[in-house]
Structures are given as C-alpha cells and as structure tokens.
C-alpha cells in the first residue's frame, strides 16, 4: 500500500464527522504560529490559526487562498497589497479585519517571529484603507517572489483584540489559541493530548468535515506504530513511524503509507564545516570529503529510498530555483585520497591523515545514522573522526555558539525561498548564537554580494537567476556539503480521507480531511 495516494477521488466518498486521533511527538511551549513558525507548532496550530495563503499543488503560483484572496506587489517593490476574505469570524465571535493583519505583521511577525524577522525586516508600516485591504509598505525594495513564497510560513494571523496592549510573549492565547481556522482549540492535557473541535462558523463551505481532532502525545518513536496497529490512533505524520518499520507496516491491512504531502517541507541533510580548522579551510579537503560520501548508499540505506540525493543548496523540489547544472562530487574514494595527498595531508603510519570532531545533530534518527556512516566514509580516506553525541541544547550551543566542532551534520529546512533560511547557512557576518546559520566561519565576499543583491531584486526572473548563480558558487566552493533532501512519511489508517492533498499537508488546516464511516 506504499503509494502516493491520489486524494481527489476519495473525497467523494461518504464521510461524516467523527474524531480523528493523530500522534504528536512534542508539546511546544508556545503554540502560537505567528511567533513560532516551526513545523512542530504548525502541526497543531495550523488547524486553528490560518495564514494569508497556503501552499497548493495546483493553485496560482503554488498558493491557495486562505485569509487573503489576492496579493499584488508594486512595481518599485516597496509595497504589497492584500485583499482579505470577507465574512470571516474569530473563534470568539469577533469579525476578522485588516487591523488584525496589520497588528500581526507589525507587532508579531516582524519583531518576534523567527522567520518573519528576515522576511519583514524592511516592513515599515501596514496601511488598512478598509477592513478588507492591507497594504504592506517596505522601506527598501522587497521582492514579491520572496513574500509569496514565505506566505504559508510567516503569515499566521492572530486576533488584535486579544493581544493588543498585553505582553505578547506571555499572553495566555499563545497556548489557548484563538484563530479563524476550521477547528477551535478545546483542551490541552499536558503529556496526554490536545483536543480541537469543529468550528461551526468556519468560512469554508461544508468545512470542516471532522467533528474533532485529537493530538495524542506519544513521545516514544515505536509508540506511534503500535498505536496505529492497535487502532488507537488514525494517523502518524512526520515519519513518526520510523522509516525502517515502514516496509512491515505497509503490509498491515487497513494501514497505508503515504509519502506525498511534504513537498514544501523539504529537509536537507547537510555536512556543516568549521572553516576555522586549517585542514578544512582547504578547498581540496572539502572536495575530498564530498567525494568520499556515497549518496546512493545514504539514500538507500539510511533513508530506505525515501529521499533524493542533493546536488546543491537548493532542493530539487523547489523547481522554481533549482539548478542542476552545478559542480557535482561523485562517490570516488580514490579521487578523494588523491585530493588529500595533493593538499599535503599524507597518511601517517597508522593510515590517518588527521583527526576531526564530528557532531551529528540529535534531532533525527537519520542525522545520527548519517553520522555513523560519515565516520566510516572519512576513515576510508584517512580522516579519523570522533563522534560526539550531545542532546539538542548542547549541540546547539556547541555548534552555533561555541563553534566547538570540525564537522557537524545538520538538517536545515528549505522553506520555499532561498532567502528565508538557505542563504543564512553560508552568509558571513552572522553573530554567534544564531541557530541554523553559518557558524563555520566561512566567508566569501562574492557570495555575500550575491545574497545582498538578491534581497533587492524585484524581478522574479532576475532574482531566480541570481540564486542559480548562488548554487553554482556554493557547490564549487563547498562552504558546506549538501548530501540529501527528504520529505516525511505519513502513515494512516485507510479510513482517513483526503490525506496529503497539498504540499504542506501535515501543517495545513485539514478542513477537508474526513473519516470514512
């Protein structure tokens, strides 16, 4: 049953309300997606709080309208005008207006949100000529392409009347969410579950289809699979069922394995490099490491086929920007060894050229396994790597603040536009302490200039061209090594309908998700 399920035909089946139970593996402290734009938050909050637009398989520009019905950029790139949906009500009964959007943008997205701080860095003001129009004004030209690509992630709108005049960071509505979405936030029992109930006043016709969604907290990875099989839950997203168990579980009657629905949530497997290390500052050494990695093995064995090999910093799934015509590093141990010899790092009597400290990020099983693999791959070319295991906070501090690493394995996310979270991985001048940024001490003036130029280029085509250039430089100079990119897997009982019908399905509003009766 391992298929990318075509969602549409199923939608016609008879469905009637019901309670959908879903596995959740974390309990974010702050559940407000306007402040914390992360997938863990979206997974739950996106059903309650909606963005201006959501990603879509076949919407205009890859977007589906949500709270905004249209968006238009000015020629000079200094403003974007949003037309907002009419007749939308907050869960507390108040009407949704442009003031809410203005408030969210100016008071939350720009100053507080982890990604909004980048995208809306130059946002000066939001004008609200009427209740259904919001005009974003920028102090410097800002590409509409970037704004559009960022919309699903950065534009969760929260009610002004609840937050205005309070300390936003500690407002109780950050956990007891109030939004406009198809589901209302009903109950949270820490350590046990979140319960969302149907919003009768939802603007979408005939939506939502479910009466209730329950996110059941299952911190243990083996727990989700067991619960699915025991029919205690209906669905486990974000690869909560380990990849290695998929083959077996796909054969269980009544359970389906779905690999669609994460197209806009691409994670990248990246080897971060500390360029302060003399050896690693040498391009030949970096090239040798790139040649030493057998991407096919990584895809086949670690990801069990549920990933693709990377060519560069932009994933293939981002077809708008992706450029396949870049320097590649086929698996070639002999060449890698030759490069290292050339670089002047001869093997010692014990076969070791030099030693490195390798820190795989602890967040995913796959990053850890890749750490094991990389250690062995490096050993094959005479580099002795010592693995260092640390928990998330320690890894964070060691790599992104203390720079106490030589190589690190990280899983950055590609969020629709290189400017949001990709360029930061290679740009220079980022202060220490910023997670998922270039903390390897890499500095390339040309690359920095390119990134700066892209941020002001209004024309989408020109901007895309700059990013193609960007990919060429990155792959040639290897500030970091992109190994693979992957989306997650959803495992669901086959009674769940309309699963994976958009490229950010797990973190979308599930208004049309239904249970077959």
């Amino acid at each position: 049953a391992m298929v990318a399920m075509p969602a549409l035909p199923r939608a016609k089946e008879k469905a009637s309300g019901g309670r959908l139970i879903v596995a959740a593996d974390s309990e974010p402290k702050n559940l407000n997606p306007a402040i914390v734009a992360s997938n863990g938050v979206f997974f739950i909050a996106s059903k309650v709080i909606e963005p201006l637009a959501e990603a879509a398989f076949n919407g205009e520009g890859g977007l589906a309208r949500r709270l905004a019905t249209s968006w238009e950029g000015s020629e000079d790139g200094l403003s974007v005008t949003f037309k907002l949906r009419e007749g939308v009500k907050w869960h507390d009964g108040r009407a949704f207006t442009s003031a809410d959007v203005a408030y969210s943008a100016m008071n939350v997205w720009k100053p507080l949100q982890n990604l909004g701080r980048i995208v809306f860095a130059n946002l000066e003001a939001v004008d609200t000529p009427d209740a259904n129009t919001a005009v974003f004004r920028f102090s410097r030209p800002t590409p509409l392409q970037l704004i559009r690509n960022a919309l699903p992630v950065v534009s969760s709108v929260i009610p002004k009347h609840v937050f205005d005049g309070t300390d936003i960071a500690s407002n109780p509505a950050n956990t007891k969410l109030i939004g406009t979405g198809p589901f209302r936030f009903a109950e949270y029992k820490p350590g046990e579950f979140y319960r969302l109930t149907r919003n009768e006043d939802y603007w979408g016709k005939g939506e939502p289809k479910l009466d209730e969604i329950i996110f059941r907290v299952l911190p243990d990875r083996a727990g989700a699979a067991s619960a699915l099989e025991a029919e205690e839950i209906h669905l486990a997203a974000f690869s909560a069922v380990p990849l290695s168990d998929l083959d077996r579980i796909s054969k269980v009657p009544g359970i389906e394995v779905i690999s669609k629905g994460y197209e806009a949530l691409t994670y990248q497997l990246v080897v971060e490099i500390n360029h302060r290390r003399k050896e690693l500052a040498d391009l030949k050494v970096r090239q040798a490491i790139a040649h030493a990695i057998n991407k096919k093995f990584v895809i086949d064995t670690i990801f069990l086929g549920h990933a693709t090999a990377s060519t560069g910093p932009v994933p293939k799934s981002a077809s708008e920007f992706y450029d396949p015509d870049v320097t590649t590093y086929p698996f070639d141990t002999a060449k890698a060894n030759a490069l290292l010899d050339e670089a002047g790092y001869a093997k010692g009597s014990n076969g070791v050229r030099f030693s490195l400290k390798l820190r795989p990020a602890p967040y995913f099983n796959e990053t850890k396994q890749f750490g094991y693999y990389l250690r062995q791959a490096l050993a094959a070319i005479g580099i002795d790597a010592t693995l260092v295991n640390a928990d998330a906070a320690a890894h964070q501090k060691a790599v992104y603040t203390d720079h106490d690493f030589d190589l690190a394995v990280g899983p950055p996310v590609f969020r629709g536009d290189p400017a949001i979270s990709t360029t930061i991985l290679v740009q220079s001048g980022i202060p220490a302490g910023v997670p998922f940024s270039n903390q390897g001490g890499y500095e390339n003036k040309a690359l920095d200039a390119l990134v700066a130029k892209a941020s002001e280029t209004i024309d989408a085509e020109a901007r895309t061209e700059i990013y193609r250039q960007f990919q060429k430089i990155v792959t040639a100079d290897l500030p970091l090594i992109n190994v693979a990119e992957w989306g997650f897997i959803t495992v669901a009982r086959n009674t769940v309908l309309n699963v994976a019908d958009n490229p950010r399905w797990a973190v979308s509003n599930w208004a049309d998700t239904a249970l077959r009766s």
Partner: protein
Amino acid sequence: MARALRLIRRRLIGSIPVLLIVVVLTFLLLQSASGDAVDAYLLSMGGGDAAIAQSLRQSYGLDQSEIARLWLYLSSLARLDLGWSVAFGRPVADLILERLPNTLLLMGSATALAFGLGTSLGIVAGARPESTTDKVVSALSLILYAIPSFWLGLVLSIVFAVQLRWLPSSGIETIASGKSGFARAADIALHLILPVGALGVIYMALFLRVMRSAMAEVWKLDFVAFARAKGLSRSRIVLRHVARNALLPLVTMLGLQSAAMLGGSVVIESIFAIPGFGRLAQEAVTGRDTPLLIGIILTSALLVVLVNLLLDLVYALLDPRVGAAEEGA
C-alpha cells in the same frame, strides 16, 4: 502515637539539610551544562537570532551570576515557591502537582505488585531452601531480574496491546473519553497493567530473591529449631516464624529501592506515554529547565524521604526491638 509523631517531626527536620544538598548539587549540575534554557527554547522555535536570545536570557534572569540565581532560587524555595518553568512557561508547582498523581499511581502499583508478589513467591521458594521449587523459582526470578525493563515494556506492549489487543498500548487513560467515577478508575487500571508489569517485574524478582535468602538465613536460627521442637505445623513455622522475621530486611530493602524505582520509571513512562515525573524530568533536562528539574528531583527526594519514614514506622511495628531503642528519645 506521640512517639510516631515525634519521630516524623525529627526525621522531616533532619532531612532539610539533605534536601538542601540535593537542591544545590542539582543546580550546579545544570549550570555546568552546555547550552541553557534559551538555547533549548530557540531550538524548539526552529531558530532565532542573537537579539531574541539576548532578550530571552534577560527575561529569564539567565544573565545574572550563578550565585545570585542560586540565592534567588533558594530564597523563593524558603517561601515554598518552586519557581517558574522556562520550558513550559508555567509554575513548576503546577507541573509537578499535575504529574505527581500519575507517578504515584505507577510507582504505588508497581511497588505493591513487586512487594506482594515478590514476598509471596519468596516465601514459596524459601519455605524449603534448596528444594526443586526453590531452585525453579529462584532461577526464573534471576532471569526476570536480568531482563531490562525497557525491553520488557516494548515486548509486553507488542504482545498484549498490538497482537492480542487485550490492553491499551499506551497512555494513562483513554483520551478525552468523558468517563468518570468507577468507569474512569477501571479505565486507568487497565492502562496501568502493562507499565506496572514492566516496571514491577524486575523489583519483584529482587524482592523475591531477598525474601528467599533472608528466609534461608532465618532457617538457621535457634528459634526456628525451637519452634520445630515445639512440634508446630510447617506452615506456622514458615509463615509465623521464618517469613515474619525475613520480612524485616525486606522492609529496609523497600526503602532503599524506592529511589531506584522512581528512576526506573523514566524509561517506562516514555515507552508507555505516561505523563509522569520521569518524562517531565527528561523534558526538564533537555529544556535545561533548572527550576523544573530541581523541583522534580526535590519532590522525588521528598517522596523517598516520606516513604522511608513510613517504612520506619512500619518497621517499628514489625520489630518490637526498634521501639525500645527509640523509646523516649
């Protein structure tokens, strides 16, 4: 009764310096950690920049010196205020009170199972040392002792929850079931069977072995020979004379093991998704949530102190000689 009260008061006051040591050591431990609460929080946010980190550190008071923070914490502790959890954004006391019942339920049931079954089987084995029954029961208990509880937990859950579907695979009760009263209690009991089994079995084996060997020791004592010389029935000798005395080391053992059992529940709680202390502690550590971790460890320690106090009282009931030493003291 007055003596018991006096004992309780003395022991509780006596444990204050101990608990203080626990607090300070835990504090120092987390201080020496790499990464702080803000690092952990930024991570859960999926990133953030240096300015956010700076302002968060300021708002959590993490920019102050360690001594100042320890002092602040201790003085609020003196007012019985456990502080504010950074990772959960809620008062630590609330979090602890929320999880405590689950942990107590799990621990209590596991202890009852381990102790009840352990002593009973221990008596069966110890009734005739070196007999076949003894050897079989002892060997089985040794195997049970050596099976890691996490592995047992996984296997139990697969067999009884997934394959046979007799029992729920995880959780403390059926979520949002709306059950109450007796139905809810029954539901919780059903959910507890597997985790309690996984956690209790190892201690059951331990208690069994202690009981058995304690009985073997008691068998050698003169008063047992005297009981035989009195022509008493075997069951009376085994239960009233041998087992009754062998129970004493077991009570001591139970006190020593209570801390270990609390620790053992960490893994079991995570496997069976039971929102208890163990999981909370794990989250506190990963979140570098110093006040929360101290709160948990402090509460656990206090729990252990109370259990031991209770056991001392039980011991005094079981062993008349103890009362004599304590008399009037």
